[in-house]
């Protein structure tokens, strides 16, 4: 391994500009003659707009234009599209109500967009927006999933009876019932996977521009996937062809999923820029982000597990209510179904599984993918259920897991819920996790904790996830309205340096470093000679972007394929110049050598020859060294791992402290260990946030009570321990780099380990369950309730 190749701990090249304030974020971009947009938003969760008078706003100082829902309804534009169609049990398609850029008739959540004011300055736009007089007839609101399906619940959309978006199922119901008929034990659990607000550090920004002389539109936006935004916005909303629409997502300050989706503001500023012939910038403030960025999770699940007399899992049945929010965000319908229910086998041999998911509309911010997206919900359910099963059957929680693990020799393993795991060694990962966590030393640490008057618990999570999203054929068969390949173009310049154009998008992942490591390693060129270009549809070939831990597993595979083509072409050139047969050329360490001779050309020499082709046989050898590849994965990739958490609980206050956290993950080949560790740290911190801190709360009127950091608790440095992070890599993943994806494992594996630990700590007090987030009051109340019983 070289010091900069695959496997090397290379410092992130992008950090120089990020840490010195030289990043180029969307709000850093300004266009000549720019105007500013302010969006007037609904203060009500559910209300009819009975009148709207914008005349005073139109006349306000500095105002260029005011657009309302009526203007949008009259314009030749579409609504925001949904990218994934789910079908009901009876085969009919899901309810898909319209999602207009600005609403004209009825607002459906606090923050719903009602009007857009465009002015010379941001303050003028905001001042004018305050002069818009909107009369609302307020309606009763519904925010909770279980309330949404009750008779008489307020109806969010006329198109969705009983607020139901879809009622979907997966698995063999009859086989599952047979399993239950044979069960020695039936273990039941109800879990709520709490709604979380993603809160990327950089709020969303959109800047639309239009060139009257060419008819070209440009949108600068905070996106994880600019080509997808170009396609969705161009084809479905504004009817603009790709060659007249450029979308640029420059440096982006975190997304965690929330910047995958196509948002109304992007289409609004682009559309209005065309109307006005002036650039329009919209910048979300933090308060706006709380009520407009898609939220995550919000599932309510009942599950039952059938177990035989030996502790083997026989069958699992699961029923989930999933909150879609007020409208369908871009990929929302897929989260509780194909990204969640398909993982219900976990790492276990449960032979029969039946799952049903009912998705509901409520008067809340739309819900979509947030780091993990469906898989944290499933890992939380399964690992909480397995712990409860251990308690109910009296089988130790480590032993129960071991009895039910899928064994490595069973690979590839077809689960009863559609997925086929390609490689994995769950027993080995589990043993590595127990060892790294010093699991056998827990009792000693517990005694020490108890000597200080506190309680200590240990929790285990042996999770699996499916990422590297996704084979297009599979996704298409399941309702995706997009392919899920990735693209790469490797452009070798005449003196041998390389520009990699990738369809992936880096918004914190460090692609400029890891991807350069891959190219440098494969082509044998210096790491410093590779630059990574991404995020601009005018520069980069069509790509699907970054989410679902897919950038290296899918995007990296495209890079690998493009590099293979480069090596093939360079081999042809070297063979020609060295007057040897292609088959005799060996490529190693950046040199093309005629086998068995000292005749050799360096990669740079071949590159120069490619662009100075004085004696090329033009009928068989083209000049140039510039290749692209599109890679469509053969399968998902399946990271797995063992997370072990130890908590200390103060029984007097309910305060939970994460005392020790160990994550041993199988993520396949590691390209940059430092970036991998950082990804796991960040993911686990978000898991700690969901498990202990982040509670999104709506009141009965649909007002978001946790609408700022004063009430929404994000994890901070003093909420997290020093982590033990290690990899137990099992090679053989179904992609050429044999990588599995690491972006989400921390957020998927950690919450159940944390809550299992809290429940374990509180067991002596009679507590059987604790809900997320396990805030001090929640824990204290659980103790009071248990002691009152």
């Amino acid at each position: 391994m070289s010091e900069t190749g695959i496997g090397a701990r290379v410092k992130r090249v992008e950090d120089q500009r990020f840490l010195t304030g030289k990043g180029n974020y969307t709000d850093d971009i300004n266009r000549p003659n720019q105007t500013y947009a302010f969006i007037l938003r609904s203060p009500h969760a559910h209300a009819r707009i009975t009148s709207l008078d914008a005349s005073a706003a139109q006349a306000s100082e500095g105002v260029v234009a005011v657009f309302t829902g009526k203007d949008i309804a009259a314009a030749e534009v579409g609504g925001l599209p949904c990218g994934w169609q789910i079908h009901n049990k009876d085969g009919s398609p899901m309810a898909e109500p319209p999602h207009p850029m600005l609403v004209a008739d009825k607002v459906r959540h606090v923050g719903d967009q009602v009007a857009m004011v465009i002015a010379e300055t941001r303050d003028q736009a905001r001042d004018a927006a305050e002069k818009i007089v909107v009369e609302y007839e307020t309606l009763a609101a519904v925010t909770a999933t279980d309330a949404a399906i009750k008779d008489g619940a307020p109806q969010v959309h006329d198109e969705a009876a009983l607020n139901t978006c879809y009622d979907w199922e997966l698995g063999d119901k009859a086989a599952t019932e047979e399993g239950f008929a044979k069960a020695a034990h039936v273990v039941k659990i109800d879990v709520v996977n709490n709604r979380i607000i993603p809160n990327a550090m950089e709020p969303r920004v959109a800047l639309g521009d239009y060139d009257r002389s060419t008819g070209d539109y440009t949108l600068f936006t905070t996106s994880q996937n600019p080509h997808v935004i170009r396609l969705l916005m161009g084809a479905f909303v504004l009817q603009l062809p790709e060659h007249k629409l450029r979308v640029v997502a420059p440096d982006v300050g975190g997304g965690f999923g929330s910047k995958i989706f196509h948002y109304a503001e992007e289409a609004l500023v682009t559309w209005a820029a065309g109307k006005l012939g002036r650039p329009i910038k919209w910048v979300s403030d933090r308060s706006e982000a709380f009520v407009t960025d898609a939220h995550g999770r919000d599932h309510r699940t009942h599950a039952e597990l059938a177990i035989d007399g030996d502790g083997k899992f026989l069958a699992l049945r699961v029923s989930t209510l999933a909150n879609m929010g007020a409208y369908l965000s871009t990929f929302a319908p897929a989260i509780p179904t194909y990204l969640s229910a398909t993982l219900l086998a976990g790492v276990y041999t449960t032979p029969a599984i039946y799952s049903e998911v009912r998705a509901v509309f409520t008067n809340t911010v739309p819900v979509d993918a947030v780091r993990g997206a469906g898989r944290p919900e499933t890992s939380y359910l399964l690992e909480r259920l397995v712990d409860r099963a251990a308690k109910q059957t009296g089988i130790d929680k480590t032993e129960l897991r071991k009895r039910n693990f899928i064994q490595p020799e069973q690979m590839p393993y077809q689960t009863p819920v559609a997925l086929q795991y390609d490689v994995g060694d769950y027993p080995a990962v589990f043993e590595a996790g127990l060892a790294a966590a010093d699991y056998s030393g827990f009792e000693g640490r517990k005694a020490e904790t108890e000597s200080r008057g506190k309680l200590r618990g240990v929790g285990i999570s042996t999770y699996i996830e499916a990422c590297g999203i996704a084979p297009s054929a599979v996704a298409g068969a399941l309702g995706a309205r997009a392919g899920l390949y990735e693209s790469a173009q490797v452009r070798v310049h005449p003196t041998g340096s390389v520009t990699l154009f990738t369809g992936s998008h880096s918004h914190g992942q460090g692609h400029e470093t890891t991807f350069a490591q891959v190219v440098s390693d494969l082509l044998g060129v210096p790491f410093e000679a590779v630059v990574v270009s991404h995020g601009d549809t005018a520069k980069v070939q069509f790509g699907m972007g970054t989410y679902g831990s897919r950038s290296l597993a899918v995007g990296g595979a495209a890079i690998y394929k493009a590099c293979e083509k480069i090596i093939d072409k360079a081999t042809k050139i070297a063979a020609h110049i060295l007057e040897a047969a292609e088959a005799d050329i060996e490529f190693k360490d950046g040199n093309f050598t005629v086998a068995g001779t000292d005749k050799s050309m360096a990669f740079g020499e071949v590159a120069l020859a490619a662009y100075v082709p004085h004696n090329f046989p033009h009928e068989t050898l083209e000049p140039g060294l510039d290749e692209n590849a599109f890679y469509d994965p053969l399968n998902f990739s399946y990271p797995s791992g063992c997370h072990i958490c130890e908590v200390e609980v103060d029984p007097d206050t309910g305060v939970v402290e994460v005392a020790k956290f160990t994550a041993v993950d199988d993520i396949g080949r590691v390209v940059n260990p430092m970036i991998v560790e950082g990804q796991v740290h960040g993911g686990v911190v978000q898991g700690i946030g969901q498990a202990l801190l982040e509670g999104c709360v709506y009141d009965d009127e649909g007002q978001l009570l946790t609408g700022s950091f004063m009430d929404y608790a994000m994890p901070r440095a003093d909420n997290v321990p020093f982590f033990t992070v290690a990899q137990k890599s099992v090679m053989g993943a179904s992609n050429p780099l044999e990588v599995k994806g690491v972006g989400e494992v921390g957020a998927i594996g950690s919450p159940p380990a944390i809550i299992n630990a809290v429940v374990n700590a509180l067991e002596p007090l009679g507590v059987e369950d604790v809900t997320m987030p396990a805030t001090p009051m929640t824990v204290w109340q659980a103790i009071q309730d248990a002691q009152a019983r």
Partner: protein
Amino acid sequence: MYSFNHQLPNSVAAASSALGSADDGKFLAGGMTLLPTMKQRLASPSDLIDLAGIGDLVGISDSGDGVVIKAMTTHAAVAGSSVVQAKIPALAALAGGIGDPAVRNRGTIGGSVANNDPAADYPAACLGLGATIVTNKREIGADDFFTGLFETALEEDEVITEVRFPAAQKAAYQKFENPASRYAIVGVFVAQTAGGARVAVTGASQDGVGRISEMEQALGGNWSADAVANIDVPADGLNTDIHASAAYRAHLVTTMAKRAIAAAG
């Protein structure tokens, strides 16, 4: 934020007079509450009378039997003051636990006391130590100063100039923080003073900072955590929000009081 006039007087008298002549003026101390409120367009004063230009309002001195802290002294200065650390270490520790470093370097004692946020820390210290709040017009005992949520005995144009804290034989502050804002859900300041034991609580009550006489009496004869351990604070009249119910707050008052007494030694 709406536009406003910024005034920078160089004396307390000029500040008071500027406020009197402003249409809808507000004194600006550290601005840790006022400025965010204005940025959210929830307040729109016509004038901000900025007290930062008055040099006389900054400084900490040893008064022999205690400390005197001028109104515009920052929390960080109080936390780092060797005088405060020596005379009333609990007060220095309390100041060092307010907000975050940015807040501690901008926020001032006068601003905090005048604002009387029901979850702020300084009011508990003032009440717990029996401080005297000195203004450009008079001296007000802490027991008479804090009159309710965000309410004080201050008149419209009255400016706090300093706060005088008598040293205590023993004192400590224990705060149970809101997990999000890190304001006090319950903060208890206990002190054994020349005039007897004092127990002041912030964060808990619907009436703002206040004292718990039952605990003070119990501590009078027996300064120990055990003395208050069985005192059940009634939940009636305590705040309830998404972070803490009234019953939980009531429990925390006793718990934090015990811990403060133990910490005071």
